[in-house]
């Protein structure tokens, strides 16, 4: 299992949900399980749905119609662009930080 990031941008629920949905539509429980697998973070149901509500309002994800109780969510084009941009920014900062940390 991945090391659990306790604080910082990598533990942001919205980023984790967007990253989870990057591999395809998922419902709430599947997002929770996926996030726990790839980030080692167990999102609480309240935290998960607070973040989902915000992401839907920002039009970064959309609910898909479903016959069951659990609706799957899909990343929108805007959501994919924003996620790619955010991860790219994070990678740039991480690369610079790690380079500077290396002994000369």
């Amino acid at each position, binding site marked *: 299992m991945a090391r659990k990031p306790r604080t910082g941008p990598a533990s942001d629920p919205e980023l984790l949900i967007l990253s989870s949905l990057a591999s395809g539509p998922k419902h709430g429980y599947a997002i929770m399980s996926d996030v726990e697998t790839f980030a080692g973070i167990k999102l609480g149901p309240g935290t998960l749905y*607070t973040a989902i509500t915000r992401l839907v309002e920002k039009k970064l994800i959309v609910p898909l119609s479903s016959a069951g109780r659990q609706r799957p969510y899909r990343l929108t084009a805007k959501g994919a662009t924003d996620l790619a941009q955010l991860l790219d920014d994070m990678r740039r900062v991480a690369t610079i930080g790690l380079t500077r940390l290396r002994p000369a």
Partner: protein
Amino acid sequence: MHPMSTKDRIVRALLSLYPAEWRREYGPELSGLLHSQPLGARVVVDVLFGGLRQRVRSAEPWVILGTPALLAIAGLFAWSMASDSRNGLSALVPPSGITFPTYTVGPMNSVRMGSYELDVYAFLLIACGWWTVARDGCVRLSRAGFAAVKLTLLAGTPIIVAGMLIALSVRTGPPSALEVMTAPLFMLPQHWLFGYIGGALGRHVPRRARTVKV
């Protein structure tokens, strides 16, 4: 029909903490998720805070600003009554020279900080008007004024309740029950104006911000 289990009752109680509109959209999903896992203390606290966050997000600005104001006035009221049971209420509700022959609510007027007299409550009303307009977009300014009025009615509840208690105890001498109960009400026209001013600022500020950005 199956009788409700303890878990069903807990899930139902937790969901009731969320606003009705939110429950209609996400309630069945969250309920299903909660039923699919053990309800530990951590999960319960997480859902509880989630409900609180949704309440705050969906609440009107006058409720968000009015609730702390209500608690502050109730706290000041309790403190002034505890420190001086006979004159405590008079200290909080002093006679007013500016309103119709009646009393005024001290914390709603001004707060003395050192040698400065600050109208903290007026800033709260202006902020309420500003927020109402800024949040909901281009709304009528009178709505910002009425939001400030609702804030005062909410924050003034402890004073109105105090007046009712005085009426029940049939206490004589100033201030009378009617004078105490009507004290927050006489401030409403002035407070409507503060809300209106805040609303006008709320309309003006984003327009300026947009101009600068472009």
